[in-house]
């Protein structure tokens, strides 16, 4: 075939053939290739540039955010007074019932430098890595709710697998009733977060908050994930289809926090 073509066209056709074969090979074997190191290099190259590109956007939004945060701080301070009273009461009751006491979560602030995936982001690049104590498996969240977990940790950066990654699964419970389920992201028939495995017998209403459950091996209990936005029946008729509106705005992420996974919090490996 190449002999019938002029030299330049032959070269470009050969290149196309080569690239097509390499692409197809990568599609077949790519999942088994160790790409984490390459992504680490990519993060190292792009993260400083991402920071520069985002400066304008962040300066413009920081003024607005600052006003909003001042108002929020005041509201929270008022709420905090009531909660302190409730905490004292809760501690006394737990001691009487001999239940373990609740401990706060250590929050490590991070900057979110870039999002990957379109139109819905599936991963985010964080400004902290192993040197800053961020480990693979740590949970990532914003003040609004859970983002996902750290999937890859590089020396100075790390990558978070967001809730919207189709391979992500989070053990959750409905806050008010304790109904258990597993959160998955589905792309068909339309992109949505679903709480799966909830039996029909369990009563769940729209607007109820969904948090990480104590059954989760990767996330500490009680982190807000979202709210139930739609209640339906699975085509099998055995379980419910619960659509979840994520609490964190996954499309506009600037700052977040990393907390160690439950095993690290317990002092395990």
């Amino acid at each position, binding site marked *: 075939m190449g002999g019938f073509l002029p030299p330049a066209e032959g*070269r470009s056709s050969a290149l196309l053939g080569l690239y097509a074969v390499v692409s197809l090979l990568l599609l077949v074997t790519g999942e088994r290739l160790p790409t984490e190191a390459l992504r680490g290099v990519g993060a190292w190259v*792009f993260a400083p*540039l991402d920071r520069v590109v985002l400066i304008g956007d962040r300066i413009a939004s920081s003024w607005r955010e600052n006003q909003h945060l001042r108002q929020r701080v005041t509201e929270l301070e008022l709420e905090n007074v009531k909660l302190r009273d409730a905490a004292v009461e809760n501690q006394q009751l737990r001691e009487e019932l001999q239940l373990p006491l609740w401990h706060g979560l250590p929050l490590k602030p991070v900057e979110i430098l870039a999002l990957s*995936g*379109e139109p819905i982001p599936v991963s985010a690049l964080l400004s902290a890595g192993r040197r800053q104590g961020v480990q693979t498996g740590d949970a990532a969240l914003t003040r609004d709710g859970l983002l996902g977990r750290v*999937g890859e940790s590089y020396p100075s950066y790390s990558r978070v*697998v967001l809730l919207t990654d189709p*391979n992500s699964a989070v053990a959750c419970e409905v806050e008010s009733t304790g109904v258990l389920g597993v959160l998955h992201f589905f792309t068909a028939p339309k992109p949505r977060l679903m709480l799966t495995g909830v039996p029909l017998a369990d009563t769940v209403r729209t607007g109820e908050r969904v948090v990480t459950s104590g059954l989760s091996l990767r996330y500490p209990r009680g982190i807000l994930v979202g709210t139930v936005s739609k209640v339906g029946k699975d085509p099998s008729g055995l379980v419910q289809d619960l659509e979840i509106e994520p609490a964190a705005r996954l499309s506009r992420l600037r700052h977040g926090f990393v907390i160690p996974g439950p095993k690290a919090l317990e002092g395990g490996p």
Partner: protein
Amino acid sequence: MRILGAFAWFMLVTLLLRSTALTALAARGLVFDVLAFATVVWALRWGESWGVSFGFALGLAADLDAAHWLGRHALALALIGYTVGRLSHTLVRDRARVQAVLILLATVLHQSWAACFEIGKLTGWPYVLERVALAAVVTAPVGTFLLALVRRASGQPLFTHAAVEPGPTG
């Protein structure tokens, strides 16, 4: 050497835009397919050899940025780069209508191919069609407008010398 520098620079800018401003826009429903747009522009400017190489390299970098399906963008963009590069010899490349049609077709092809990997079931096709149509409707006019802006700013045609530039192997 100059072309290699431009190659790396154009790729870097495209990937940066994709991971910052355009991701935020995409999440609001405004999908500007910067990968397809950049590949079309590069292939129109430098012909099929550079077009196919640019598409492949850009696609591979985009694939590495995601966790799954390595080679997905690389294959589609290499094909787009090659096809547009071949067509660039016969088309009037500086005509806005030609650019709009090429960007539109490239976006439709790239978005359809990329969506096939994400939507496993047939029930997802209405969403795929909506996503592809939206990306094409946004990318073609915005891309053509951007090219017109650059042409006006530079004061000369953008795509003059594709046929005389040697490819990456030549």
